[in-house]
C-alpha cells in the first residue's frame, strides 16, 4: 500500500480514455463499477469538451456481483455498437473489474462484431495513465495499420523526385498539457519547412487514418510518454524514422528543425534565419539580470522536466538545484539530465517524497505540476506549472503552446511571473518593517498584501521561540543580506546531512536571519545550522551566521 495525498497519474484506463476521446469514430466499452464515470468530467469539465467521451461503462453494482457481470458487459458492448456505430471498438476493464476477471476481450470475440475490436490489457495495480495511453495507442495502431504493413524484408519505397516530404505527428491526445496549441505551433513550423502532414494521431484521427500511417516518410514524436512505443513499432514495420528532439525552448526548437530537415532531406536555413522569438532577447535584456542563478526545482513528466531544465539553465540563466519525474518509464532520460546539472535525480511518484525534497532544497522557484502547487503553497515558494497533471486553469482559451518559438515566449512569461520583480526584491533586501511591502508579503504584482500567513517560513520542524514572532525592528547598517544567501546557495548540498543534533538559535541571531529576504532565508538557515553542527557550536549567534556566510562563500 502506498499513502497518496495526490497522485501524479490516473489509472491506466484513463490513459485509454484519452486515446479514445482524442480519436474519432471509435468507442471504448469499459467494464467498471458505478461511479467510474467520474472520468468523463476530466474531458467535459477540465478540458471543456463539448461532447461526451465515446465511452460506455457497464457501471455494475454490488447486487450485480452475485449475478452475471459478464452478461452485463456483453449487453453493454452490443448496445454501444448499435447505438454509436463506431469504425473500431476498444474494450477493457477498470481496476475493480480487473479483480472480477470477466475477460472483456474474450467476451467481445463471442459477440462477433463486424468491426475491429481491440482488447486492452491494462494492469491497474502496476501501471498508470501514461502507460495506459501509450499501450492503447500502440495496440490501436498495430490493429489498424498492421494489415497494411509491407512483407518483412521489402525495401522501403524511395521518395520520388519532386514529391514533398510527408510526416505523421504522433502523440497529441485528449487531456494533454497544451497538446492543442503545441500541435498548431509545430504544424506551422512543418508547413514553413515545406513538409506535408500525413496523419496526426491520436488527436482527431479516425481508424481509417491510423490505417494509412505507413504512407508517411517519417514520424514526428511530440510526446514520448504516449507515442514512443508506437513510433518504434512504425520504424520496425514501415521503416519510418522518428524525431527524438522535443521542441520546447528556443534552442531545442532550432535543433528540432535541423533534425526534421535532415529526415526530410531539405534545407532549413531559411526557416531558421527568420525564426522569430522574443524570449531570447527578453532573457538578455538587463531587466532579467536578477534572474541569474535563481535556484529552481523541476518536476513533471520526463519530457517536460528535461526540456524545462534545459530552458531554465541555458535560456533563463537559472540554476537547477533538483530535477525529477514521476514517469518511471523515462527515468533514464531524467537521470542523464540530472548529470548535466550535477544534481541527484528524483524518480518517484510519491508526493510526500517530492515535498520532502523541496523542503530540503529550499528552491526560489518550483517548476512542476498541479501537485507541486500544493507543495509550493505549503512551503511558500513561487511556482509555475510545466507539466501534467494540471487542472482547468491550464487548459486556457488563449493560444499558449509550450513548443516552438511562440512556446518559448509563453515559457518566459509564465516562469518569471511568480517571482518577485527586481526593484521590489532589492528594496525588501534593504529596508524592513514596511507595513505594506514587507518580507512576508506576497509579491505586490500578484496582489499580495499584509498577512504573515502568505509566506510563512518553510522550516516546520524547527522550533521558533515565541518572542521571534514579534515584528522585527528595522535594523540599519546591515550589508546586503541577499549576498549571504546567494553565496550560501552555491554550497554543497550534502553537508547538511552529515550531522545529528541541531544547534539552537540565539534570539538576536534569529532576528538577524529574518533580515535575509524570505526566498533565500531557508537556504541561509540550513547552511548556518549545518555550519554550527560541523563546528560544534551549541548556540547560533549573529557571529555564527556571518561565519557561515563567509565559510560557504569560499
Amino acid at each position, binding site marked *: 500500500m502506498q*499513502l497518496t495525498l495526490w497522485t501524479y497519474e490516473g489509472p491506466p484506463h484513463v490513459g485509454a480514455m484519452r486515446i479514445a476521446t482524442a480519436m474519432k469514430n471509435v468507442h471504448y466499452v469499459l467494464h467498471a463499477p458505478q461511479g467510474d464515470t467520474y472520468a468523463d468530467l476530466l474531458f467535459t469539465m477540465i478540458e471543456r469538451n463539448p461532447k461526451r467521451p465515446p465511452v460506455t461503462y457497464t*457501471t455494475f453494482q454490488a447486487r450485480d456481483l452475485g449475478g452475471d457481470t459478464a452478461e452485463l458487459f456483453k449487453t453493454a458492448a452490443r448496445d454501444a455498437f448499435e447505438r454509436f456505430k463506431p469504425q473500431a471498438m476498444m474494450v477493457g476493464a477498470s481496476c*475493480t473489474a480487473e479483480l472480477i476477471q470477466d475477460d472483456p476481450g474474450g467476451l467481445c470475440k463471442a459477440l462477433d462484431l463486424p468491426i475491429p475490436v481491440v482488447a486492452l490489457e491494462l494492469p491497474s495495480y502496476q501501471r498508470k495513465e501514461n502507460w495506459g495511453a501509450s499501450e492503447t495507442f500502440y495496440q490501436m495502431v498495430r490493429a489498424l495499420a498492421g494489415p497494411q504493413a509491407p512483407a518483412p524484408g521489402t525495401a522501403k519505397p524511395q521518395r520520388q523526385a519532386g514529391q514533398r516530404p510527408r510526416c505523421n505527428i504522433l502523440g497529441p491526445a485528449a487531456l494533454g498539457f497544451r497538446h492543442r496549441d503545441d500541435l498548431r505551433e509545430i504544424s506551422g513550423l512543418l508547413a514553413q519547412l515545406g513538409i506535408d502532414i500525413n496523419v496526426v494521431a491520436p488527436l482527431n484521427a479516425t481508424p481509417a487514418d491510423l490505417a494509412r500511417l505507413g504512407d508517411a516518410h517519417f514520424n514526428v514524436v511530440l510526446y514520448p510518454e504516449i507515442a514512443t512505443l508506437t513510433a518504434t513499432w512504425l520504424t520496425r514495420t514501415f521503416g519510418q524514422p522518428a524525431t527524438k528532439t522535443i521542441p520546447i525552448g528556443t534552442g531545442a526548437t532550432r535543433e528540432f528543425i535541423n533534425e526534421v530537415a535532415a529526415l526530410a532531406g531539405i534545407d532549413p536555413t531559411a526557416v531558421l534565419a527568420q525564426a522569430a522569438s522574443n524570449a531570447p532577447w527578453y532573457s538578455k535584456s538587463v531587466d532579467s539580470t536578477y534572474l541569474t542563478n535563481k535556484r529552481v526545482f523541476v518536476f513533471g513528466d520526463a519530457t517536460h522536466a528535461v526540456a524545462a531544465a534545459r530552458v531554465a539553465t541555458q535560456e533563463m540563466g537559472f540554476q537547477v538545484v533538483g530535477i525529477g519525474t514521476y514517469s518511471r518509464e523515462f527515468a533514464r532520460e531524467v537521470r542523464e539530465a540530472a548529470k548535466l546539472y550535477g544534481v541527484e535525480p528524483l524518480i518517484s511518484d510519491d508526493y510526500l517524497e517530492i515535498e520532502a525534497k523541496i523542503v530540503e532544497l529550499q528552491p526560489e522557484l518550483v517548476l512542476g505540476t498541479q501537485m507541486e502547487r500544493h507543495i509550493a503553497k505549503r512551503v511558500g515558494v513561487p511556482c509555475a506549472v510545466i507539466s501534467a497533471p494540471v487542472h482547468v486553469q491550464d487548459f486556457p482559451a488563449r493560444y499558449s503552446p509550450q513548443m516552438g518559438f511562440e512556446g518559448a515566449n509563453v515559457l518566459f512569461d509564465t516562469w518569471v511571473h511568480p517571482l518577485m520583480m527586481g526593484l521590489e526584491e532589492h528594496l525588501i533586501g534593504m529596508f524592513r518593517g514596511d507595513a505594506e511591502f514587507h518580507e512576508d508579503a506576497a509579491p505586490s504584482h500578484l496582489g499580495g498584501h499584509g498577512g504573515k500567513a502568505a509566506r510563512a517560513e518553510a522550516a516546520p520542524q524547527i522550533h521558533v521561540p515565541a518572542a521571534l514572532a514579534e515584528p522585527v525592528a528595522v535594523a540599519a547598517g546591515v550589508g546586503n543580506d541577499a549576498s549571504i544567501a546567494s553565496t550560501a546557495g552555491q554550497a554543497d548540498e550534502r553537508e547538511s546531512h552529515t550531522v545529528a543534533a541541531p544547534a539552537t538559535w540565539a534570539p538576536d541571531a534569529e532576528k538577524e536571519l529574518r533580515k535575509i529576504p524570505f526566498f533565500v532565508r531557508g537556504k541561509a538557515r540550513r547552511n548556518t545550522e549545518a555550519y554550527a553542527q560541523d563546528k560544534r557550536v551549541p548556540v547560533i549567534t549573529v557571529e555564527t551566521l556571518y561565519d557561515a556566510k563567509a565559510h560557504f562563500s569560499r
Partner: protein
Amino acid sequence: MIAIRPESKGCADAPVLRERGQREVFCGLTGIIWLHRKIQDAFFLVVGSRTCAHLIQSAAGVMIFAEPRFATAIIDERDLAGLADCNDELDRVVTRLLERRPEIKMLFLVGSCPSEVIKLDLSRAAARLSGRFSPNVRVLNYSGSGIETTFTQGEDACLAALVPALPAAADDAPASLLVVGALADVVEDQFARLFKQLGIERVRFFPPRHANELPEVGPNTRFLLAQPFLADTARMLEARGAKRLAAPFPLGSEGTSAWLQAAADSFAVDAATFDRVTAPGRQRAAAALARLRPQLAGKRVFFFPDSQLEIPIARFLARELGMQLVEVGTPYLHRQHLAEELALLPEGTALSEGQHVDNQLDRCRAAQPDIVVCGLGLANPLEAEGLTTKWAIELVFTPIHGFEQAGDLAELFARPLVRRMKLVA
C-alpha cells in the same frame, strides 16, 4: 406559502420508472469533498486503487491545499498477491499519516470498490487502530464504494458509522432534538436560532463541526432529517432509540415551514409562537421568490439522477416557482422518508429511479426541456446541443436549506437561463 390542494393526491402512489443500464453518477467517495470541510479535525483515508485517488483529486484538486484532510492508501500488486499483509500495510500507512498530522482527532477508513471486492475487513482494522491510537484519535470506517453507494450516500454511510460512537443519553434525559445531515454553517446557525426562538432548548446538529462535539443520543432523542439521503443513518439512530420526525425537507419556504412545524408539533410549541417565529422568514422568502418567479414560472425542468435531492427540489420548483416537471430522476427513492414530499409533488409527475443514461438522454432530447439538471459529465455536452443545464453537484455544495436560502436556491436555476439570454443578446 401555497396551500395544499385537497383534491390532489400528489405522487404518493405514482408509478416510478425503474431503469437499469449505465449510471452516470458519482460514487460515495465524493462525499469526502464536503465532509472533510464540515468536520474540521477529521481525516478521510480511502483504501482503494489509483482510480479512487484520481477521483477525489479531480473533484477537489482545483483548490490548492497546503494540507489536505484526505488521502488514499493505494492497494498495489503486492497487496493483491498476498506478498504483503494488507493489515500490516494499512497500519504502517496510518501511522505515517498520523505522525504527519498530529492534530487529527478522527480518522475515517473509507472503503472502496477494490477493498470491498477483495473483502478487506476495514471495520476490524478500524477497531485495531482505534485501540492503538486512543485516546488521541478515534478510527472509524465506512464504505464509499461505487458498487454500494451513490454520491450523497457516502455521507449517509459516514454518519451511520458515527452513530455507534455517539455518547448515550440517559433513559430519563429530557427530550432533545437532533438535526441530521451536513448543512452549511450559516444554515445551521439560522436553524439553531429558529429552534431557540421556538423554545426548543436542546438542539444538536449531526455531524458536528469538531470530532469532540458528538451529540448524545437516546430514547428521548427526536431527530429531523435535513437531507433526503440518510436512510442508513436514520436506521442506526432508530436502533439507538431515537425517533424520526416525519417531515418534508427544509427546501423552499413551504418545505422549511413544514419541517420546522414537525419539530414544533413534537415539542408542543403553540401555533401562535410558531407563526410569530417563522413569519419573518416566510415573508423574506416570499419576497425573494416573487422576484425570481417571473423568470422561472412555466419553464420545463428535467432532472437526471444524482443526489436524491431531486424530489424535494422538484417539489419546490413546481409549487413555489410554478415550474413544470418533465421528469424527476433519482438514484434511489426511499418511499418512507420521502412520503411527505411525494404527497406534495404535482399529480402525474414522471418519476424515475435508477438510470439507463442513453435512454434517459433520448427522453430528454425528445422533451427539449427549458432546463436540465444533470451531472458535469453531461452538462457541457448538453449545452453544446443547445439545451440549458444546471449542474447538479452545486446543489450539494451551496447553502440551499431554510427560509433565507429559498431565494438562493431559485437563483441557482434562474442563473443559467438568464445567462443564456444575455449571451445570445
